[in-house]
């Protein structure tokens, strides 16, 4: 047998290649089927159980198929959803919820108040494995009368209604779930959301069909395919090649390049995630001068401008401007001279630096390692010698839960309901497994706020806590992240400040 590779063979091969490649590539002119390159995969369809239930990045997919008890608008404000009214009775011993009428599940069955009561009871049952069980278990003894659900307040939780549009706050179909079980629900999930699941390939894609009976109005795109593309470079290639119409979370340099190129449109708004440095009250961090110097020596705006191409908002407390307890009056300046003076008072300086370890992830968030490198450089100038230790995010969680983080540790914190309990509260309250600052003074300040029924007094109390934390440098808030989203010219994306990318908020340009 002889082999000849001549011009004719080559042309035939090329023609075959083009024919092969033409199979199934999306047309770019008319967008009939919206394709989104998503940055995470979807491990499970039950939004109330398991690790994916508390993964903020996945919530955008869940919210496309399921409705939460209460709707959260793009600016984080609550709005009537499946519950049209909600509140406590006068003595706060009961909660009363009014359920929307005329809603149907994706399988055509009617949505009822029984579904709401069952979903809340199920979430409160420790056997189901809901990670937010500690919140849902504060309600019990549900009664349903018409479209009204009433429950006893077993323990007053001021944020209970905020959790109804936060992690695991979803309504599931009682009758359907009891009929098909957990496995059947995983195979064919049914919700009341704007989109219905048409097909799902684990680790690959989910194809959604618009819910024609959606109570909030049928979404603009009849069909939406969400491809799971975890690699940022591949996501950029997806939109650049026209294989996908929308994507998110790419390096800011790539975002600027593609947006300025004119082929794609972009939106970049601040979302509810923040970057921060935990300070553990051990070793040198017990010295207030060291902590205060560490805070004063960081030029946050420079980091945002140089490393994040300007995409970020400097913060001085764990609240962003969208959060309920944000107080613009609390401000910490960049003051390296003052930092040096404080260190000198404790016997430290550039020639005799104070030494500690700072832990950080590398590549978990945009420029996380680079930011810490820059901060270490700024610290060095004033007399702080920090050694960087890189760890995986899983290690961070483990160390934080065991209260064994290094004296300083970088982390990002999400709080899409914007309540101070779910930012300052859990991050800084000593007994919380998420806090590494155990000072009794702070515990005494925060303790009474957990059950404070007077909302005005509660928020004022959290602002006072934030002021105290800033004054004593108990944590280093750095910045509020900005989420970059790129879209093909035919699509208009309405970003959501929670960071959830919602196909129902996308329209044709």
């Amino acid at each position, binding site marked *: 047998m*002889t082999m000849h590779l001549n011009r004719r063979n080559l042309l035939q091969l090329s023609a075959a290649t083009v024919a092969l490649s033409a199979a*199934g590539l999306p047309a770019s002119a008319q967008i009939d089927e919206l394709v989104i390159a998503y940055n995470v995969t979807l491990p499970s369809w039950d939004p109330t159980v398991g690790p994916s239930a508390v993964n903020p990045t996945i919530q955008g997919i869940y919210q496309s198929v399921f409705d939460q008890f209460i709707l959260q608008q793009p600016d984080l404000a609550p709005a009537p959803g499946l519950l049209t009214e909600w509140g406590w009775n006068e003595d706060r011993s009961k909660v009363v919820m009014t359920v929307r009428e005329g809603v149907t599940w994706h399988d055509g069955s009617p949505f009822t108040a029984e579904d709401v009561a069952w979903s809340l009871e199920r979430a409160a049952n420790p056997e189901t494995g809901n*990670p937010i069980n500690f919140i849902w278990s504060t309600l019990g003894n549900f009664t349903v009368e018409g479209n009204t659900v009433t429950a006893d307040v077993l323990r007053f939780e001021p944020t209970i209604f905020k959790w109804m549009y936060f992690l695991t706050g979803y309504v599931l179909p009682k009758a359907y779930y009891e009929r098909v079980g957990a496995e059947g629900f995983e195979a064919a999930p049914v919700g009341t959301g704007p989109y219905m699941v048409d097909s799902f390939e*684990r680790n*690959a894609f989910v*194809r959604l069909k618009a819910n024609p009976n959606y109570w909030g109005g049928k979404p603009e795109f009849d069909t939406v395919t969400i*491809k799971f593309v975890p690699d940022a470079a591949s996501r950029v290639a997806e939109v650049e090649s026209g294989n996908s119409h929308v994507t998110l979370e790419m390096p800011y340099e790539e975002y600027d390049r593609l947006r300025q190129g004119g082929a794609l449109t972009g939106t970049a708004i601040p979302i509810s995630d923040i970057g921060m440095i935990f300070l553990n009250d051990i070793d040198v961090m017990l010295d207030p001068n060291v902590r205060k110097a560490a805070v004063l020596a960081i030029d946050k705006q420079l980091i945002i401008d140089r490393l994040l191409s300007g995409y970020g908002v400097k913060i001085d407390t764990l609240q962003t401007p969208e959060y309920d307890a944000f107080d613009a009056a609390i401000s910490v300046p960049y003051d390296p001279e003052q930092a040096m003076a404080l260190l000198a008072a404790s016997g430290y300086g550039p020639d005799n630096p104070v030494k500690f370890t700072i832990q950080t992830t590398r590549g978990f968030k945009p420029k996380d390692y680079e930011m810490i490198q820059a901060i270490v450089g700024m610290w060095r100038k004033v007399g702080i010698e920090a050694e960087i230790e890189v760890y995986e995010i899983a290690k961070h969680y483990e160390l934080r839960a065991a209260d064994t983080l290094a004296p300083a540790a970088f982390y990002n914190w999400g709080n899409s309901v914007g309540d101070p309990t779910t930012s300052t509260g*859990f991050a800084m309250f000593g007994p919380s497994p998420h806090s590494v600052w155990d000072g009794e003074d702070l515990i005494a300040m925060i303790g009474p706020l957990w059950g404070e029924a007077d909302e005005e007094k509660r928020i004022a109390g959290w602002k006072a806590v934030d002021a105290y934390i800033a004054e004593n440098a108990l944590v280093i808030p750095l910045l509020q992240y900005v989420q970059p989203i790129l879209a093909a010219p035919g699509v208009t994306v309405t970003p959501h400040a929670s960071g959830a990318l919602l196909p129902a908020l996308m329209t044709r340009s």
Partner: protein
Amino acid sequence: MPLLRAILIRLATTAVTLLGVAVIVFVVIRVVPGNPIAMMLPPGATEDDIARLTALYGLDKSIAEQFAIWLSGVLRGDFGTSITTRQPVLSLVLGRLPATLELSVLALLIAVLLGGLAALTGTRARGTRAEAAIDIANGMALSVPDFLWGLILILMFGVVWPVFHISGRVSPALDLPFASNFYLFESLVRLRPDLTADLLAHMILPALALALPLAAIIGQLLKQSLKETMHLDYVTLARTKGYGETHVILREALPNAVLPTLTLIGVQFTFLIGGTVIIERLFSYEGLGNMAIDAVINRDLPLIQGIVILFAVIFTAVNLAVDLAYAALNPRLRHG
């Protein structure tokens, strides 16, 4: 009989190897940093919540107890339940295995084709500029790692000249009439060229990225073997009989020269399957490798164990198959 005895010994050692792998993996993934329970703790979780979740996933027992429970389950065909997906591990890994196998086999075919072509052409054109060009191309293919080839291919055929799909395994809009997860195989059997074309348009780039370094290795080794064989007496005799150079290479030299390459292909195939972990991630291909990365990120211990054990089974099976094929092809081994 010696062959049968060798097979039985190999099977016995394989079982011991797999048990060793199981022990190592089980212990290592519990010792390395990263606690799956810590990762799913919500803000405000109490010590009781932590204890409840730990018990729920069976992580409150000692490692020895956990291993005993897991091993007894494995022997009954129960590899446990994935923490993140809450699905049986066995069905998850078996569901993804066909995708990875199809990608690996396609990559292997491409590698053999390209490597063989390079070796044969280089041998045929030895001493010319064509041989030098092939050697340079071989060197380039070998020196660039597969993930970098992946990025280059995405850029070339996904962005600059967007002719192939750069993510996924099949177009979501297609209705798949398949009974198994061997999509490519089934599309061929069912004579569905539309589906075959769509699948290949998705698989060609990741397969090529995996294949190029292996093709270079095959090309180099086969060419070297051919070069040595071409100087043997029986090849000279064939030439003196008047056979053309192409005939001499293909019919006389190649059968002898191909044996070392076959062994190499077997060994490299296992590395190629290992390479799918990164390549599948890069191309968002729904195989075992992609699933493995998610499992590691989420510290999904039962799923990591299941995937590693399956990879170990594949590696040992491929090595066994190569040894058997080598024994069958080599008369000296066949007859003891």
